[in-house]
């Protein structure tokens, strides 16, 4: 078959002109949604999937549960800290915990993550101190942790850019003959960026061990996914010659199983995979955003029933793998984390003004040195010797 069979095959080349059906942007009927890979139903029931299996111990499930709860608690605390004026901005992951913890836990220590600005749950799984994530949102730095310490790259704000860095990094892994793989995180909105599609091309042409992990949280600020694509995003991959999978992004087990498979596929020399985690941004885009301007609260209500944490809790309780004591201890731990974060933020030192001139270059630059000296002389001319 020469006409791609997945979209609108012509029956016959009509010689006559069909009357034009006027059509407006967005009015094309959305195609039926494909089934998601799911291993844990919203009710907490464990189900099997023909293509993806997962073996877990109760202990592992409890550890996953703990991650989910702690990550949500951390995120909630950060939102609160923004309201209290301790942070300038916060991008909440509320609702996306399973996508992040599932994929984050699928990585081995040697695997590298390239996040957007919302991957707090992935950072957690990679062992990054949550306090580190807050620096840029407080305005004391633009990131600033050492990406190589935990193989977790800096947050990237320019949508899509990091998918190319991830791909280049993965190309380097291939050159090294190493056994590692990379995850490039991005959003549904990002799928429209040229950079993301160029990353697909480079990754497939060089067969790079990179998993493109798209958290389709249904919204890019105020724009629903239909403004980015008229077909499910996971299908983009096939046009570039690699597999795409859509997974229930609120099912942490499915996210774990699918991402683990994808990473193994990639590290085994089979090239990239696109995973679309179908989830929902339960909160505002960031604390600056007001979603009531553009979306219905019913939508939110419907997604609440699919909560990623509730379903794992229900599963654990049903199986008798979690008692009240365990749940309470996780709760307590999460409060402890929140306290540590709160205190850590409040005592986070401001950078010195001269930090502006630091790290602009690795090898130095005469103009930076000159301006720094000028600034210092100027600052010294003030009482107290420093200006704000």
């Amino acid at each position, binding site marked *: 078959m020469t006409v791609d069979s997945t979209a609108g095959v012509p029956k016959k080349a009509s010689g006559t002109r069909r009357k034009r059906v006027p059509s*407006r*942007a*967005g009015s094309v009927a959305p195609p039926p949604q494909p089934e998601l890979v799911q291993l844990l139903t919203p009710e907490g029931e464990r189900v099997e999937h023909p293509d993806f299996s997962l073996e877990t111990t109760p202990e592992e499930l409890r550890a996953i549960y703990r991650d989910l709860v702690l990550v949500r608690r951390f995120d909630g605390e950060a939102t609160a800290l923004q309201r209290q004026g301790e942070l*300038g*901005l916060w991008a909440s992951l509320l609702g996306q915990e399973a996508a992040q913890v599932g994929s984050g836990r699928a990585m081995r220590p040697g695997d590298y993550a390239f996040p957007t600005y919302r991957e707090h749950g992935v950072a957690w799984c990679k062992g990054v101190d949550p306090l580190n994530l807050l*620096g*840029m*949102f*407080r*305005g*004391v*730095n*633009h990131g600033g942790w050492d990406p190589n310490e935990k193989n977790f790259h800096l947050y990237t*704000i*320019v*949508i899509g850019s990091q998918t190319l860095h991830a791909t280049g990094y993965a190309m380097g892994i291939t050159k090294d003959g190493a056994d590692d793989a990379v995850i490039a995180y991005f959003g549904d*909105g*990002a799928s*429209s*960026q*040229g*950079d993301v599609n160029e990353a697909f091309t480079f990754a497939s042409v060089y067969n790079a061990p990179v998993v493109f992990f798209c958290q389709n949280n249904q919204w*890019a*600020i*105020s*724009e629903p996914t239909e*403004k*980015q694509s008229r077909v499910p995003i996971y299908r983009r991959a096939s046009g570039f010659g690699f597999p795409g999978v859509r997974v229930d992004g609120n099912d942490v087990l499915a996210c774990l199983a699918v991402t683990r498979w994808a990473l193994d596929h990639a590290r085994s020399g089979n090239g990239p995979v696109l995973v679309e985690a179908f989830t929902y941004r339960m909160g505002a885009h960031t604390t*600056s*955003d007001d979603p009531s*301007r*553009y979306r219905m609260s019913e939508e939110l209500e419907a997604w609440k029933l699919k909560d990623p944490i509730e379903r794992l809790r229900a599963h654990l309780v049903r199986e008798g793998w979690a008692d009240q004591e365990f749940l309470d201890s996780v709760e307590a731990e999460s409060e402890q984390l929140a306290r540590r974060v709160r205190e850590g933020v409040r005592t986070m030192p*401001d*950078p*010195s*003004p001269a*930090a*502006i*001139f630091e790290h*602009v270059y690795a090898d130095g*630059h005469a*103009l*930076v040195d000159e*301006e*720094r000296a000028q*600034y210092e002389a*100027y600052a010294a*001319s*003030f009482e107290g010797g420093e*200006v*704000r």
Partner: protein
Amino acid sequence: MSSFTMVKALNEALRKELEADPKTLVMGEDVGRLGGVFRVTDGLHKDFGEDRVIDTPLAESGIVGTAIGLALRGYRPVVEIQFDGFVYPAFDQIVSQLAKMHARALGHVKLPVTVRIPYAGGIGAVEHHSESHEAYFAHTAGLKVVTPSNPVDAYWMLRQAVRCDDPVIFLEPKRRYWDKAELDPNAAGAPSRLHDARVAREGRDATLIAYGPMVKVCLDAAAAAEEDGRSLEVVDLRSLSPLDFDTVTASVQRTGRAVVVHEAPVFMGMGAELAARITERCFYALEAPVLRVGGYFAPYPPSRVEETFLPDLDRVLDAVDRSLAF
């Protein structure tokens, strides 16, 4: 006459232009139902519909590139880039296509595309949300580059930009978005031409040259200097390309001293061109070299140190002191 913030003034300007010409379009990320992250397009989607106020996919090159195509079809798109730091993916479409296509076609096609960009710092934002990149655009032949400093100019300059048959980079100083002024949006026409600089305050001892967000800083500096018995003239450039050197040099011929103030790094910034050209034109009138106050040669810093990076009243007056002491 009523009181308008700059946001409201810009909103009203867009509304007027959408009403005046059915070919005028507004397009960008979140400009529709949300009304833009700064609400500059608030209500336009509701009143003009999604055919004229268009939420686009998240792809800046695509936004500018399709706006070019729409212009070729006879439309007059007003594009919003959500923040300064996100215009670079569209740089190729702006520099190689938008700026050059009219010349390439020997005038056969026109590209009446306005690219609105909330720019510059001072609002405590995260990275990429505070950049001043006017120099890149001003150096690019084929583009016009303008930036208002107050709500009244914002209103009239945006209306003129939309009506201009050339591509206009319209830089909106986001820290001035909530400044207010009295404006009559139904007045007969713009108080002056799009490309004229404006003497925002008269003075004798030195000329402060600024645009966009820094005009207010310079006016404040001039007011403070007056208390010290110094009379500073403030010129608001309004247009960076073309740049109205007549108004600038007339002022410097009188005062003999000039200080240029902008947020962008000094190195290769607008101040360099102003200094070079003022010196060419006013060589014998200058009592001191043209001095420049601007951002440092570094990425725009985290918000907790942005005040150090941004020129303020003290730094402006320090430069005035140095000029006067020369």
